[in-house]
């Protein structure tokens, strides 16, 4: 059994750049990897046919200029860095890419994947911008198209049995991550927000058969270890794209403890399980369209507000840090709306813009300091 520290080191290495030891092993054994953007792409589809779903990020990109030459400097830096990796060949280990209309930036990024990076397999899904039964049929049709394309390209049939075991595997990982999350409810949690996000991000980059034992050991280690030192304030970090634990560290170095993270790559990625009874494909699709909604889902503000406030309550947070990637419009509207909803609810909130690969900004530190002080902490 590996210790908490050993596992955190492994997770830290896994998320530090595009390639990691597990993906490398996977590839060496002749198996395929498909990169995908966004939490609306069903991982179980790929797992069911022995293809590894790998969530694309920009970690390891030092400079986005090769992508900026196409995308300009007015796009979100997460997309620019991920495309910089792709254009410079650092994602060549991917056997395919699946993208979707998450936002205007990811859409334009896909144009480059298709026309410049040219992976062996590429597919684009049009996911509805509403979370509503009236559009479920469309989502199902789009996913049918993806399923067929994946079957044709990889020469493997997606079967109900394969999907069922993929559901079990992914659910197991989600349950473990939720148990880790639960530990953060305690007065002195056994892990920091930085560590929790490291684990959550790594979970989207490691094959489930390797991941599950790691998470089991991690959880067992956490249960045995004592709590951390008392924090100045308990915080929920909310918002859009967030796969850089250094950003959380930056907050925690000011004395705040991040007890929950309502963000992409974080809680939202593992919160909802796929029901294990019923038609597996239909259950997967329903789970993906109706999971905790991202801000791209228009009309779901009440649900997002309810989810965020429940995290604040359940994790006994003193306030919220709402982070948004600069240039991101999806989370721009949301930051405005959530700001006022939280103000009305009397929950302290700080809205922060940030850029990918610029985690340790002095400005963030200063603003977090001021925020903690404003809460009397």
């Amino acid at each position, binding site marked *: 059994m590996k210790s908490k520290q050993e596992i955190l080191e492994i997770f830290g290495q896994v998320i530090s750049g595009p390639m990691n030891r597990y993906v490398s092993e996977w590839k060496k054994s002749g198996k395929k990897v498909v990169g995908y953007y966004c939490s609306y792409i069903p991982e179980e589809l790929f797992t069911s046919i022995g293809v590894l779903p790998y969530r694309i990020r920009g970690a390891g990109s030092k400079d986005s200029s090769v992508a900026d030459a196409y995308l300009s400097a007015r796009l979100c830096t997460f997309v620019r860095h991920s495309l910089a990796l792709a254009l410079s060949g650092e994602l060549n280990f991917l056997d395919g890419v699946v993208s979707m209309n998450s936002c*205007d930036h990811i859409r*334009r990024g896909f144009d480059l994947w298709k026309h410049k990076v040219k992976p062996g397999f590429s597919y684009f899904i049009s996911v509805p911008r509403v979370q509503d039964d009236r559009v479920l049929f469309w989502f199902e049709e789009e996913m049918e198209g993806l399923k067929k394309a994946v079957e044709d390209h990889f020469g493997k049939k997606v079967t109900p049995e394969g999907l069922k075991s993929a559901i079990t595997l992914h659910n197991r990982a989600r349950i473990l991550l939720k148990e880790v999350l639960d530990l953060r409810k305690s007065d002195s949690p056994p892990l920091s927000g930085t560590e929790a996000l490291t684990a959550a991000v790594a979970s989207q980059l490691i094959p489930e058969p390797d991941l599950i034992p790691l998470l089991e050991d991690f959880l067992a280690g956490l249960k045995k270890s004592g709590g951390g030192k008392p924090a100045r304030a308990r915080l929920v970090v909310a918002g859009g794209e967030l796969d850089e634990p250094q950003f959380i560290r930056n907050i925690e170095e000011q004395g705040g403890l991040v007890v929950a993270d309502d963000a992409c790559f974080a809680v939202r990625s593992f919160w909802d399980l796929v029901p294990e009874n019923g038609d597996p494909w239909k259950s997967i699709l329903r789970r993906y369209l109706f999971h905790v909604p991202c801000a791209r889902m228009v009309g779901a503000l009440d649900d997002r507000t309810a989810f965020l406030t429940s995290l604040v309550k359940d994790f006994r947070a003193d306030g919220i840090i709402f982070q948004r990637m600069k240039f991101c*419009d999806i989370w721009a509207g949301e930051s405005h709306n959530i700001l006022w909803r939280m103000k009305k609810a009397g929950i302290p909130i700080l809205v922060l813009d940030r850029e990918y690969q610029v985690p340790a900004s002095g400005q963030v530190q200063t603003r977090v300091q001021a925020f903690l002080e404003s809460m009397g902490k």
Partner: protein
Amino acid sequence: MAILGKERFEDLEAIHEGITGMLDIYKEDPASRGLNAYFKAFTKLVENLCRPFDDKQPVVWYNLGMSPELILALEGVHNIPLEAYPALQDIVGEVNFTLDYIDRAEAHGLPHEVCSVDKAGVGAVLKGIMPKPSCILGVNTPCDSQMAALQASAELSGAPLYLIDIPYLYGEREVEYVARQIRDAIPFLEKHTGRKFSWERFREICLRANGMSENLLAWNEYRKAVPCPQISKLICLMVPLFITFAGTETGVVTAAELAAEARERSERGEAAVPGGEKIRAVWYQDPVWFDLQFYDWMESELKMVIPMDLFGYHAPEGMIDVSSRESMLRGLAHRFIRVMPMSRQFKGPIEWYLNDYVTLCREYKADCGIFAGHVACKHAWGGLGLLKEKCREIGIPLLVFEFDMFDPRVTSAESIQDQITQFVNNVVLPRIELKK
């Protein structure tokens, strides 16, 4: 200054004064037929913004990704585009009001990088000058910034919002999907406005929408003539016209006037550029709405004309088959996916973006292209690298500059003039000379 017999918000009075002033100057001018048609249409839009305060009839807000045919089919319902105030202020009113709307929205927490039209729309809502809506109908085009504004407006007004999801691609399946959602929107509109949707009325509206489109298509054709018969700035005003008046008599008449002026001038061999045009440019992306005189300067100083831009180009897919209820809904779906400017070029795959540009350059015999990079328009900027490659491939030089179509504080008209002048003198004219 009273509008419809009453004192109004100073914002509206500024717009009204602007239009009245323009009409006083140009209404007797036979050379300003198209411009006058616009001014008259904008007068109607000002009245539309006043009437709900007087008659207390239900109001539906909607965003600029859609035209209003469906809303108009509910009798006695006012259709108010969210962007009405900033568009009117910049074009015919007082730009400082737009800047005030933008500043209000930013001060209220809407991030700086959201499109200025959307920030200004939200600012107008915050200022309380928009007639209160019974509900909001939206489409998720052209961009994410629009969705930010739509949701913020719904939040601020408390009005229920119905979103028609516009998918990524365009084909029969996509059209059916959108048509089905448009049909589903009808009970939503009926419920919240308390008004009945009339299919007969809808049919008449679709016929008028077709009438407007026929005129716009003809107008687009006449503007292909060399020399371009009609001034540049007329094309960039088409977007607010289409968004507000598609399906109305005002829309038909205004489009007919534009087409008639272009045809007559073309038949008489008249050129938009005084003394004859030297350069034809396709203007891609957003216009300089905060200073329309900029276009006059371009024509008189540089002898450059814009025969067509992204806002004025009317796509042929917009004709509605009125033979059945289903065909009308499908017709509207075609419009939402593939006709509305910006949505048409930027919402789908990069080919849509590049193909229209190449088509415009070819059909309007462009010597050069101008990418007027509206700072907030991420999906336009995000395709720029591939656009530049395409320009090299077709051998047409492209100027790229950064500005904000509503906000002169980002880049002044003078600075844009400098950049265009240098481009014309250093790149375009020498190339034209070489070709001779």
